[in-house]
Structures are given as structure tokens and as C-alpha cells.
């Protein structure tokens, strides 16, 4: 914001060549420094140009994306944890917000599911069986769930863990029919939350998993429930430190944007 008006105007001329990648490295660096200084005029101009040029791809001819790309991306994402959300100064450098591209690592977990992991999958499948009861419709559901379970990279990833812990969650209200389990590996903080019996959340609401330490609640994650099915939610990083810190897990119904403390009644609870 310390930029002189005349310089600002001059730099404005660089916005188009910048967006089109036509600045030489020296000019580009200089221009980016100018943007970082916070020149609102240039940032606004750039924003308009990015919006405008983003229309061009809408005119391109349709191409079939490579089969399996989606799955490869999601598999890779499940082995990579997003950076914690942080409040960031708006970055003007729209062309350079990117760290160097990394090649995908080998998806180790597909091959590294240990004997323990396989046992866990079976245990979970059995639990699903228990949960779902025995009507024909439910039996089909169980078969579907088992198939999904065994194919699910997320579950495999979590169960490829060397150690794991199983925390059963039960409905707080007697006869609610809510049930769940939280399988997790405290060593790598990966886990899978399995929930059954919860109804689809009302409009504008979602479920939220909490952990309890010293009688305080800490938000773990939000999740949705599909109609009438047990759900499995992969957790990439359970926000805990040492293993001994957590005493219990709980589930509540919260506004869609999530809460920092439970505002709804505890629906499910499970102590370690």
C-alpha cells in the first residue's frame, strides 16, 4: 500500500501479460512483489482478468477424461492430509500460490494391509451384520456394505495400520437404535467412524463427532448420513496428541457449518 499512484498505473499495464504468462522472469518477479505489497488496483484488475480468461475453457471441445483418474486422485488424497485451515492474507499471486508439483507416491496401503488389518475388516463386517439384523432387505444391504467395505481404499488405508483401537459408540437415548464404532490407529491418527441408525440430518444440519479430554469437548469432524444405511467416514487426522489424552467420543447434531462446542444433545457416546 506504499506504492505511489504513478507506479500503480504503470503496473496495471502488466496485468494482462502476467495472466497470459508473457512477462519475463525479472518483470514477473517485480510485478509479484508489487502484488504482495497489496496494490488493490492491480489485485482487482487481476481478479477480473482471471474470471474473464476462465471463460475460454468453456468453449473447448469435449474430451473424455482418463478412466480411473478420479479414483487415483481420491486414493492419493486419502493418504495425504490437508493442511489445517488457517486465516491467510489474501494472496495476490494467483499464478504462484503453488508449491512444486509432487509425483504421486506408491499407494502403499493397497498392498500393506496386515493380518491385523484383515481381521479388522472381518470384525467390522461382522459388526455390520449384527447391526443390520436379518430381514432380506437388510441382508442385501449387508452384502453391499461388505463389498463396499472391502473395496474401500479408505477403510483399507486405516486398517493397514499396525495397531488400532476399537471404541464402540452406543445411543444415549435407550431404544434409539443408534450405534457406531470408531476404529482408529493412535500411532498415525487415522481412523474410520462407522455409524448406523442415525436418520438423515434435517436441512441445514449435519452430524458432528467430538472427542472428550478432561471433560472438555473438541470437534473432530462433521459428517452426513445417507438414508437408512450404515455409513463409514474416513478420518485422516484425529486431532489428538498422546494416546492417553482421549477419554471418550460423542456424536451430536449441529448446524451445517459445524460448532466449536456441542449445541445439540449427545446422540451417541463411547468411552475408551
Amino acid at each position, binding site marked *: 500500500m506504499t506504492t505511489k499512484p504513478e507506479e500503480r498505473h504503470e503496473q496495471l499495464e502488466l496485468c*494482462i501479460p502476467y495472466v*497470459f*504468462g*508473457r512477462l519475463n522472469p525479472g518483470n514477473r518477479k517485480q510485478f509479484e512483489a508489487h502484488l504482495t505489497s497489496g496494490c488493490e488496483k492491480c*489485485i482487482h484488475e*487481476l*481478479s*477480473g*482478468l*482471471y*474470471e*474473464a*480468461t*476462465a*471463460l*475460454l*475453457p*468453456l*468453449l*473447448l*471441445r*469435449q*474430451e473424455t*477424461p*482418463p478412466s480411473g*483418474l*478420479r479414483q*487415483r*486422485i*481420491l486414493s*492419493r*488424497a*486419502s493418504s*495425504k*492430509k*490437508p*493442511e*489445517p*485451515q*488457517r486465516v*491467510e492474507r*489474501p*494472496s*495476490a499471486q*494467483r*499464478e504462484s*500460490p*503453488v*508449491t512444486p*508439483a*509432487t509425483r504421486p507416491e506408491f499407494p502403499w496401503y493397497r498392498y500393506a494391509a496386515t493380518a491385523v488389518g484383515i481381521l479388522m475388516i472381518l470384525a467390522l463386517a461382522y459388526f455390520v451384520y449384527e447391526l443390520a439384523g436379518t430381514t432380506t432387505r437388510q441382508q442385501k444391504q449387508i452384502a453391499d456394505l461388505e463389498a463396499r467395505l472391502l473395496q474401500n481404499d*479408505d477403510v483399507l488405508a486405516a486398517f493397514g495400520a499396525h495397531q488400532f483401537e476399537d471404541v464402540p459408540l452406543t445411543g444415549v437415548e435407550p431404544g434409539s437404535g443408534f450405534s457406531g464404532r470408531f476404529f482408529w490407529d493412535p500411532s498415525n491418527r487415522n481412523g474410520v467412524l462407522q455409524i448406523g441408525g442415525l436418520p438423515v440430518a434435517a436441512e441445514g444440519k449435519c452430524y458432528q463427532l467430538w472427542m472428550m479430554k478432561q471433560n472438555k469437548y473438541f470437534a473432530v*469432524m*462433521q*459428517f452426513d448420513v445417507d438414508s437408512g444405511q450404515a455409513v463409514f467416514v*474416513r*478420518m485422516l*487426522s484425529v486431532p489428538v496428541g498422546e494416546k492417553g489424552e482421549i477419554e471418550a467420543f460423542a456424536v451430536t447434531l449441529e448446524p451445517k*457449518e*459445524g460448532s466449536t462446542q456441542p449445541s445439540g444433545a449427545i446422540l451417541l457416546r463411547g468411552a475408551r
Partner: protein
Amino acid sequence: MQRNVLAQRQQIDREDADLLKRIQRSDQRALGSLYDRYVGVLYPFTLRVTGSNEAAEGVLHDVLLHVWEKSSSYAPQNGSVYAWLVALSRMKAVEKMRAANQKRKQESEGGAQRSASAADTKQPAAETIVALKGYAEEVRNSLKSLSKLELRLLELSYYEGQSQSDLARMLRIPLGTIKAKMRRGIQKLRLSSAEEAK
């Protein structure tokens, strides 16, 4: 731009912002949804810039993982999620191209025929994306005001990184005309983008 187009675009932007919030909470389904929404545009785009299926796939892979890992680097003040995705894709594609295709570029002097101009294509990329379909149609209509030359210049410059003097040489058009046409083309694009309609 008509009001309904603006409303459509605002709806798209809101939905994208919601997806990004869910991605920040490690919701992989949201990442899948973002992929489904934009693969129909971003894949042809990265393919157009890189000219290779393999490179285009790699770029898209890197872009989506960047979104997954660094979604907090998106600054709403700087524009829509869609524009961010396109800018990221372009940047990563250009990086890849620079690394891999330096010599190929010299070989194909004047070889801007990597793929047909979008101006006369019949099956636009966004056609498959339900969320964007109506909006994309409106955009295409509004971009009919671009002359063939304006669009061609924008494409060569945006997708292939041709400089204005390269374009002047290649197309045997005076540099001044190239500059004027490009400027006019960009102006028309801006008029068509929802940002400018606000």
C-alpha cells in the same frame, strides 16, 4: 450479462465455496464432487495446453491434490473457485510444458495446429456438467461477439503462450493490429464474465 446468468453463476460460486469448506474439513466426497463438477472443463483445458493425455492427466491430478492439501491458499477476495482452478491448472500445465516440451516447440515452428480452434467445435466441454450447463451455454452465446480472429488470438496466447510478436509473425498481421484485437477480445471476455456484470 443477463440477470439469470449472473444468478446462475452466483449459485455455482456458492456451491463451490461450500465444497471448498468441506474439503478444508477433510471431506473427500467434496473433493470428488469438485472433480465431477469441473473435470469436463479442466481436462480438455489441460489437454489443450499440454497437448498430451498423460501430461493433462498429471496436471489435473496435481491440481486436485493441491486443492486438497492447500485449499486455504484460495483467497475469495481474488475471485471465484472456478477461476482459481483454471488459473492453477494453467500454471501447472505451463510448468509441465516448459519442463518437457522446450525442444518440441522449436521443431514445430508455426505449429499452432495442435488442435482445432474452439470457435467451430460443436460439443463444448461444459456440456456434460449439469451444474455448469446453463451457465456455460449463456457464456458461449455471449462470446459469439468475439470475432474468429479475436478468439484465435486469445486461444493461441492463453493456451499456447504465444507472444504478440510471435503471433504477428506467424499470422502475418501487423503487431499493432494483434495488440488491438487482443485487447478488444479481452474486453469482450470481461464483459461476458459475471464479475464484470456486478
